[in-house]
């Protein structure tokens, strides 16, 4: 019987009622007395020297209250990168300052160099145009293509960085010679050059920020579209504006999706705070969709050469990759970690590969900053490996399922130390592979191929077995790897006098469903109804601390913190019960919402204990404090390692090149599943984004750095009819061994595992159709590209 409440129940998402009925409260929904409107003035060229900005005409426009330029922020700090990466030669990465507003130079189309604040949005917009017209920018040649960027030293995104390189990273550098030797000795080497296409995050809600300043106290408040308000507070206070942390409250109310792009601190947030202080009025800014395209941190954008050395039977002996990773014009907060420690460390995949070496050169270009986007580094690693393994199968005429089985780690090999620095704690990769094969009806595939052929379509099947490291992250480990922050999380469980509960969590929900799942866990542990529990998140004034939500970390890290705080609540409850029941604390047991004296029928309900905690008429105050509220910080001992097997079936119309995904099966191991309905939804969304990357989405800059795909007229988002009905399974669970809930995280899985399954299926379809000269097609595998490949 499926449970209908608590852990493992498919409780419907309580937050959806307000989201689906238009009653969510997003940043832009807030309207404050006396508010003024900010409009950013953005560069229309990719690279240029700011010669002069004449603000006079704009300032004289009706309703204009203030104009800001880079000059106003030249003495404040810069927005830093969160990870320090060292190059292979030991030198630290190049870290150009990222100013609030561009100063001296503009470095990408959409780079904001000024802002206009006015009484109304329309007035600000009018004045912004006047200001743009009164600005002289001397256009410089744009650095767009990564290969050209590193080859042509004359053309520099940052004048002080001669080769446009942020760093040249080797992982693990000491293994390089051994990997080279293993590759040389390998009986067969597969080589593949591929592009991991750049993506625009396209959160449904554009970024928005409101700054407030309270002159009476000197306090600031920032309401903003953030996935992690505490991190934003830290960056604004300690790095950019120099505001004491206790003087800034950051609130992230309902947030309409982020996919990574709202992890980071952006200049607009500092701008509205500075403007609010100068004007003594709230100042608001909301991005237009065009601004989202131009200025949100983009994702992916790798160019990779992968070599895979193997035996003729398909045993993988060595993997070596060389990647150029685009960071765009400035270092966004996680931009240096994404192509390195979230990518290179995964390059062994779920396989037993003795030798792996990864080289990543991170390149500055005159494009929008690039940072973590759903999956962040791990989709890039998975795509490279799984495409190379597929190519190996084709070159050696081997069965892709058998090859996976030969190379997958087996359950008895855990814990397993990879050659790229991770320790996989547990897993059963054969089980998910078998499950996927069963659910995808692989044995019936040939018949489906024949049926498709009757309709003039080529059918193909693609497989991907994937792994990721998430539950980000053990502070001790990331500290060694260059992180400048710890990646623990925190929770406060506040039991109210009437027995209801508020949980203040450092996780931030921007669509994931925390408001539903976290109460399920509380309800299970305390034996109370889910409806008695409320989640409080997204406000630095209300929650103890938190690192926010990304990297599939909410349950694994913040959920674990909550679990620990609940343990403390139960321990305190036992103390109270011992006092009330006149028993020894050691004799009190807690089960099903009742504190009992072992071996007797004496008991107090959770509600009675809670009430007593706040009405402590006869407490022994020396030994028992009133109140029932506990906080815990949780720092994970290791990453978690979700893994799975994905099987995709496509039909290709060889005449037009159009690919249809006709079936998709995902068998995942997420450890213990708290709410199957939500997990399934997360996989649907992730796979949808993966199919989007594989077939539709492309971010294209022309040679002058103009964004050609700057609207939905040209940026192809996947739509409902681009995706099939999914078959999703997560029954093959091996619980995480090191967190109290045994959870691994499911938010990014779909986006990580699916792109290679789709592309492998397309190649398979072509080969089955006799089009065997096509070894690879870069994503997005658009109709034109498929047609070109077939006829090329």
């Amino acid at each position, binding site marked *: 019987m499926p449970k209908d409440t608590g852990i493992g129940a498919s409780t419907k998402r309580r937050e959806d009622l307000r989201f689906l009925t238009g009653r969510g409260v997003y940043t832009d929904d807030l309207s404050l007395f006396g508010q003024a409107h900010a409009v950013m003035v953005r560069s229309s060229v990719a690279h240029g020297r700011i010669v002069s900005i004449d603000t006079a005409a704009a300032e004289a426009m009706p309703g204009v209250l203030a104009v800001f330029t880079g000059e106003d922020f030249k003495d404040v700090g810069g927005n830093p990168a969160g990870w320090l990466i060292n190059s292979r030669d030991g030198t630290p990465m190049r870290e150009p300052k990222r100013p609030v507003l561009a100063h001296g130079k503009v470095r990408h189309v959409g780079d904001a160099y000024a802002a206009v604040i006015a009484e109304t949005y329309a007035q600000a917009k009018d004045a912004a145009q006047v200001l743009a017209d009164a600005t002289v920018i001397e256009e410089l040649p744009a650095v767009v293509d990564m290969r050209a960027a590193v080859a042509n030293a004359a053309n520099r995104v940052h004048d002080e960085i001669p080769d446009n390189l942020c760093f040249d990273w080797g992982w693990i550098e000491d293994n390089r010679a051994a990997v080279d030797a293993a590759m040389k000795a390998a009986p067969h080497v597969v080589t593949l050059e591929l592009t991991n296409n750049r993506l625009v995050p396209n959160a449904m809600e554009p970024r928005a920020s409101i700054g407030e300043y309270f002159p009476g106290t000197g306090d600031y408040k920032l309401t903003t579209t953030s996935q992690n308000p505490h991190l934003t507070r830290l960056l604004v206070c300690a790095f950019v504006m120099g505001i004491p942390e206790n003087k800034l409250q950051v609130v992230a109310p309902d947030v309409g999706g982020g996919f990574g792009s709202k992890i980071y601190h952006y200049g607009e947030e500092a701008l509205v705070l500075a403007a609010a202080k100068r004007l003594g009025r709230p100042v608001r800014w909301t991005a237009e969709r065009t601004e989202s395209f131009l200025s949100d941190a983009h994702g992916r954008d790798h160019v990779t050469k992968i070599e895979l050395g193997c035996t003729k039977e398909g045993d993988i002996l060595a993997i070596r990759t060389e990647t150029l990773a685009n960071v765009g014009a400035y270092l966004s907060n996680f931009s240096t970690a994404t192509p390195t420690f979230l990518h290179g460390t995964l390059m062994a995949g779920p396989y037993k590969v003795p030798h792996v070496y990864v080289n990543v050169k991170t390149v500055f270009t005159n494009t929008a900053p690039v940072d973590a986007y759903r999956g962040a580094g791990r989709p890039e690693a998975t795509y490279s490996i799984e495409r190379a393994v597929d190519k190996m199968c084709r070159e050696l005429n081997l069965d892709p399922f058998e090859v996976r089985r030969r190379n997958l780690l087996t359950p008895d090999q855990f814990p397993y130390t990879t050659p790229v620095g991770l320790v996989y704690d547990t897993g059963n990769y054969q089980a998910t592979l078998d499950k996927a094969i069963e659910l995808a009806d692989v044995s019936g595939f040939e018949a489906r191929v024949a049926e498709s052929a009757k309709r003039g379509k080529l059918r193909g099947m693609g497989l991907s077995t994937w792994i990721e490291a998430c539950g980000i992250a053990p502070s001790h480990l990331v500290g060694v790897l260059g992180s400048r922050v710890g990646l623990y999380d925190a929770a406060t469980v506040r039991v109210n006098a009437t027995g209801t509960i508020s949980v203040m969590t450092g996780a931030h929900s921007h669509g994931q469903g925390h408001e539903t799942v976290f109460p399920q866990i509380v309800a299970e542990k305390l034996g109370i109804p889910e409806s008695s529990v409320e989640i409080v998140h997204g406000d630095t004034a209300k929650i103890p601390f938190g690192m926010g939500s990304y990297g599939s970390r909410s349950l694994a890290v913040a959920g674990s913190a909550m679990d620990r705080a609940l343990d403390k609540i139960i321990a305190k409850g036992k103390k109270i019960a011992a006092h009330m029941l006149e028993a020894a604390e050691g004799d009190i047991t807690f089960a099903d919402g009742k504190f009992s004296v072992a071996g007797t029928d004496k008991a107090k309900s959770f509600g009675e204990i809670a009430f007593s905690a706040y009405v402590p008429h006869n407490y022994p105050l020396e030994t028992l404090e009133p109140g029932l509220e506990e906080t815990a910080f949780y720092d994970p001992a290791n990453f978690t390692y979700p893994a799975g097997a994905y099987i995709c079936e496509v039909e290709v119309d060889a005449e037009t090149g159009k690919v249809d995904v006709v079936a998709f099966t995902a068998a995942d191991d997420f450890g213990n599943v708290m709410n199957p309905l939500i997990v399934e939804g997360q996989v649907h969304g992730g796979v949808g984004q993966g199919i989007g990357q594989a077939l*539709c989405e*492309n971010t294209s800059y022309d040679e002058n750095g103009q964004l050609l795909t700057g609207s*939905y007229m*040209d*940026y*192809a988002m996947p739509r409902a009819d681009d995706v099939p009905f999914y078959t999703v399974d997560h029954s093959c669970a091996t619980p995480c061994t090191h967190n109290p809930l045994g959870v691994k995280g499911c938010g990014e899985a779909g986006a990580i595992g699916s792109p290679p399954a789709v592309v492998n299926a397309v190649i398979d379809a072509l080969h089955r159709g006799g089009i065997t000269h096509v070894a690879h097609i870069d994503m997005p595998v658009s109709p034109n590209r498929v*047609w*070109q490949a077939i006829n090329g």
Partner: protein
Amino acid sequence: MHNFDFVKPSSIADAVAALSSEGAQALSGGQTLLPTMKQRLAAPDVLVSLTGIAEMQGVCTGEGGLHIGAATPHAVVARDAAAHYPALAALAGGIGDPAVRNRGTIGGSVANNDPAACYPAAVLASGATVVTPHRRIAADDYFQGMFSTALDEGEFITQVIFPIPHKAAYVKFNQPASRFALTAVFVAQFSDGVRVAVTGASNNGVFRWTEAEAALSSDFSAKAISDLTVAADDMISDLHGSAAYRAHLVKVLTGRAVTAAR
């Protein structure tokens, strides 16, 4: 968006008067014009709405075929033309999404003459007549290259009259992002011959593929065009499709349209 005045005449005569003033522009469904104004790429002084004029609404049969009021939304054409001219109704039903179809109109689409729009293919392949307050313009004279038509300054479409073919079909290959036509072909078979109009493909906007028309007029089957080739010279080349790809699609889609024609 900049400030503008708004008028909504209830007769064609009042609309003619309103549109004769300097800086006035017709507004129909607003699905093209309003986004352009929001992006500040257009800033008319006066918008003259054409959606309040009864004679410019609806679908009915009449002299010369099917009469469609210029301010008739795509959704209404999809519904009301289905019994008379199924290929045309299907075309209207495949434009954009429900919101676009409930506001966007045939007149706006034909006036705008977007090179990737659907209706121009139907108008040209049907040999339709574009009616304005002062004259009637044959489809062959009306389309004059992308975004360019025979309409004079201030002149507007009141109605489009479609002769009804024996058989017809519209086959559209979606541009992956916008889902306008990357290339689309409308084939219509009349007693005096076949007309084939192609949209989405050419730098010169919608055009007739006359070689295919000749071949199909003597043999209305996909194999009748199998030996023909389409030159890529004037084809659009962009992120979504090269000129050669579009030229290829013209032929593939024409064949499919012939097969699908009903």
